[in-house]
C-alpha cells in the first residue's frame, strides 16, 4: 500500500499543479467579487496540502500493509475488459452502437469469460433486445447506426 499511496499523493500533486497552471491566466479577484480563478486556486491548494499530508502519513506509517491490486491473471482480465470497452467505443461510428454492443458482448462472454456458445448467443440476443426495446423503441433515442441501418 505504501507505493500505491505515494503514487496517489504524486498524482494529486500533479493534478493540483495542473489546475493552478490551467487557470493562472484567469483573474483571482475581479473588481468587487472573486474571479474565475478564485475557486480553482483554493481547490488546488487543498489538493497540495492533502498530497503532502498523504505523503508524510505514508512515510511515517510502518504497518507494512500490502497493496490491494490483483494478481497477474486478475490484471489481464481487467485489462482485456477495458480494452474491449474502448474498442467498442471506437467501433461505434463505423458499425453502429447496436452492432458494436453485440461484438463486445460476444468478446466478453466467449473471449474473456469462456462461456459456452449457445448461452452466450442467447444472452447477447436478450441484451440487444433490451437495449433496442427500452432505448430505441420506448425512449426514442437515436443511437448511431451502422451500414445496415441499425
Amino acid at each position, binding site marked *: 500500500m505504501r507505493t500505491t499511496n505515494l503514487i496517489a499523493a504524486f498524482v494529486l500533486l500533479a493534478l493540483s499543479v495542473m489546475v493552478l497552471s490551467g487557470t493562472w491566466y484567469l483573474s483571482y*479577484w475581479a473588481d468587487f467579487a*472573486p474571479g474565475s480563478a478564485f475557486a480553482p486556486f483554493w481547490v488546488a491548494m487543498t489538493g497540495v496540502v492533502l498530497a503532502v499530508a498523504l505523503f508524510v502519513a505514508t512515510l511515517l506509517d510502518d504497518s507494512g500493509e500490502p497493496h490491494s491490486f490483483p494478481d497477474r491473471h486478475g490484471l489481464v482480465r481487467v485489462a482485456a475488459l477495458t480494452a474491449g470497452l474502448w474498442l467498442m467505443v471506437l467501433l461505434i461510428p463505423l458499425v453502429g452502437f447496436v452492432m458494436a454492443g453485440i461484438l463486445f458482448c460476444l468478446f466478453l462472454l466467449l473471449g474473456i469469460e469462456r462461456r459456452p456458445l449457445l448461452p452466450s448467443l442467447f444472452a447477447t440476443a436478450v441484451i440487444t433486445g433490451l437495449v433496442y426495446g427500452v432505448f430505441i423503441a420506448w425512449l426514442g433515442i437515436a443511437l448511431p447506426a451502422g451500414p445496415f441501418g441499425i
Partner: protein
Amino acid sequence: MDPLASLASLAHGFSIALTPTNLLFVLIGVTLGQLIGALPGIGPSAGMALLLPITFGLDPITALVMLSGIMYGGMYGGTLTSVLVNVPGEAASVMTAVDGNQLARQGRAGQALAAAAIGSFLAGIASVIALVFLTPPLSAFALNFSAPEYFLLALLGITATASLGSGSAVKAMIGATLGLMIALVGTDPIQGTSRLTFGSLELLEGIDFLPVAIGVFGIAEILVSMEQTQSGQVIRTRLRDMWLTGKDWAECRMAIVRGGTVGLLIGLMPGAGPTVAALLAYVVEKKASPHPERFGHGALDGVAAAESANNSAAHGSMIPMLALGIPGSASTAVLLAALVLLGIRPGPMLLTEQADLVWGLIASMFIGNVILLVMNLPLAPLFASVLRIPYSYLVAGILIVSLVGAYAISLSLFNVGLTLFFGMVGYLMIRADIPRAPLVLAVVLAPLMESSLRQSLMLSEGSPTIFVERPLSAVLALMVLLSLTLPLLSFLLARRAARRAGVAEALSHSSD
C-alpha cells in the same frame, strides 16, 4: 407546517402515488432495487446512476418514485447475497454477511432473511414517518439560510463524509478534492469564462454528473468484480423456513428499535449514509446484547440491527436532501442530480414549489416498503434463484446499458468515452483505497458551493467574517471545523493508545 397539515399533505401524496402509472413504477423501482442490491459488485448508487437515463421520458414524480425505489430496494436486496453467498450485495450489507451467512450455514437462512426483512420494513416505515414530520419544519427553517449558510452547509456535506467515513479521512478528502476538480471544468457560472477545458469544445459545458457517477460507481465496480472468476456457492432457502418463532422475535425486536434509531440519526447527518449506519448499529447492538459472544458466529439480533439501520439511514438521508437540497449519501446525491436533470431546483423551496412531487415521493416510500416486505418474505426464495444466474451474463448487460445510458444523456460519444475514463479512475480509487462517495458528492455540491462562496464574498466585499457573523452561519462554521478536527483527534488518540499498548506489551514481555 403543523403535524396535521403534514398528514393532510401526506394524504394528498397518497392520491398521487396510488395512480396506476406511479404504482407501476414504484413496483419497477423496488424490484430493480431488490435485484441490484442482490447482485454483488453493483450497489444502489451505481444502479440508480445506470438507470437514470431510462427516466428521461417519464414525468418527474414517476421518475423519482422509481429511482428512490431502487435506493431503498437495494437495502433489502443486499441481504440475500450477504446471507446466502457470504458476499455483501452492497456495502451497507457488510455486517449482515458476517452473522447472516453463519446463520445460513447453521440451517437458519430463512430466519436471518425474515429478521432482516421485518427489521428493514419496520425501521423503514418509522423512518418515513420521521421524514413526514421532520422535513416541513426543517425546510421552513432553511428558508432563513442565505449564501454563507449554503456554502457552509455544502462544505459540511463534504467534510462530514471524511470525518464520518470508515476509512482514512485524508483519503476521503482526496476523493472530495478530485470531485471539486472535476466540477471546475467548463464555463465559470458567474463570469462566463472557460476554465480547464484545454481547448476542447466538448468540455465547455462542463463534465456531466452521469458519466462520472456511472463510471466511478458502475464501471469501476464491474472492473473489480472481473479480477476473478465469480463462483459463489448459493445456500438454498425454502418458504417454510421464513418464519420467526416467539423466541427469535423477542431476540430481535429491541435490536430493530436500536438499529432503526441509529440508522435514522446517521441518515440525517450529511456524508454518513447507510454503510456507516449499519456498522455503528452492529457495534451498538453487540454492546447492548445479552449474548455478545454470539456476534460474528450467527447472531440474529446482529442481522436485524444492521439491516434495520441501513434501511432507516437510506430513508433518513432523504430528509436533508428534500428539506435543504444537501445530499446525505451517495444515493441521495444521484437522486439530487436526477432532480436537476428533470428541471427541478432542489432546496428549501422544493416543498412549497413542488409539493406534489415531494409528498408523492414520500407516500410512495410507504407503498414501496410494503411491496418489499412481500418480496422479501414469501418471495425471497424466488429472488434468491436469480443469484444462480452466472454473473458474467449480467456483467455484459450492465456494461452495455451503462454505455447506452451515458450516450443518451447528450447523444454524444464523448460522454461514453468520459464514462469509461471515470470507470478507470474509479477502479484505481478502489485499489488505492480512496472512497468514491465523496467524489460524487463533491461533483453534485460544487456548483452550489462555488456560487454561494462567491456571492458571500461579494456581499462582504471580500471579508471572510461573513461566515461567522450570523449565529446560524457561526454554528455551521463550527461544525465544519469540528468535522475537520475529529479525524485528527481520533488519529492522535489511536496513536496514543497504540503507544500505550506497545508499552504494556513490552512490560508483559519483560515480566515473562
